């Protein structure tokens, strides 16, 4: 039995293009990654809003009308769902990458994540307060 006699054929499974549908956790991962598309959409939407406001009161009103068309609302609802998914996964996962120390001791990841969620709440409140005319 020499090397050439011994057949060393390996079976090499291929990863299918649809590998991510086979597992719930993979699907969630792919959805998380796709959230970036809606982040990009959010930027576009935001810049359009700013542009409209800058062009004057009329175009601002036009923008508001455009934004309340049903398909726009649906699109933005979907986008909202994705950016919320993005925010939640981001704030739960990101803290695992950093070690925050308090008096030399590492804080548990859950507390770091808690801090992030608190910051999220504060930021949202501030934005709402400014937009809704508290300023």
């Amino acid at each position, binding site marked *: 039995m020499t090397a050439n006699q011994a057949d060393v054929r390996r079976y090499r499974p291929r990863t299918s293009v649809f590998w991510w549908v086979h597992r719930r956790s993979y699907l969630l991962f792919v959805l998380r990654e796709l959230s970036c598309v809606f982040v990009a959409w959010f930027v576009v939407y935001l810049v359009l809003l700013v542009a409209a406001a800058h062009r004057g009161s009329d175009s601002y009103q036009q923008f508001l009308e455009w934004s309340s068309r049903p398909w726009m609302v649906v699109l933005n609802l979907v986008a909202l769902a994705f950016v919320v998914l993005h925010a939640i996964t981001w704030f739960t996962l990101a803290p695992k990458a950093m*070690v925050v120390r308090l008096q030399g001791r590492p804080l548990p990841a859950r507390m770091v994540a808690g801090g992030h969620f608190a910051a999220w709440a504060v930021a949202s409140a501030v934005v709402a307060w400014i937009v809704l005319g508290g300023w």
Partner: protein
Amino acid sequence: MPDTITLQVTRYRPDADGPPTLQEYVVPLREEWAVLDGLNYIKDQLDGTLSFRWSCRMGICGSCGMTVNGDPALTCGTFLTDYAPGPVRVEPLANFPVIRDLVVEIDDFMRKLPEVKPWLVREDGEALDDVEFLQTPAEMDEYKQYSMCINCMLCYAACPVYGLEPDFLGPAAIALAQRYNLDSRDQGAHQRLDVLATAEGIWACTYVGECTTACPKGVDPAGAIQRYKLTAATRTLRSFLMPWRAR
């Protein structure tokens, strides 16, 4: 509880033609039996030609990793009763070439492992005096978790990036590099940076996180990689801002 359970086991013989097939065996269902005990029953009583690896049957040698009902698992620590009434599908670990039946080839990992220099690097050479390098329990806690890796390869089987990008260093190798980087006795972090902070190293990982879910020893390779990304990125930034201090 029924007293038997069906195992659907992957059979693959490289010297015969054809791709892997599933073969069914009926084995006794006993409360204390792990999936591995079922496989040994098959090998000893039903079909001596079934091949798989195992040794310690106490979750520490890392040889018995397989895919059980779709999830990577150590078969010596996964119990048949948890799958009753069955059937239980037992397949080789995903993302690796299959040598035979349930045996996969892990040469790729064995080649990558030395690249990350998983040993203690000392710049002062190796001076073995009669005293130990001091290390407080707190300093040990920094890396302890990452030193628990048994090289079972479940994390590689769970990581889709490794499946798609075979050049990826992979979770366990990076976690082991971090095990030494974070060891207060080690001085080799900057040497490992060159291997780790590459497109095939940490930057290939998209933080799927499944490696950590699959790991039977609580190593958290996903966390190790993310932590290292932050370290590598800040070091790079520092070398841009303060090139004179960069190494």
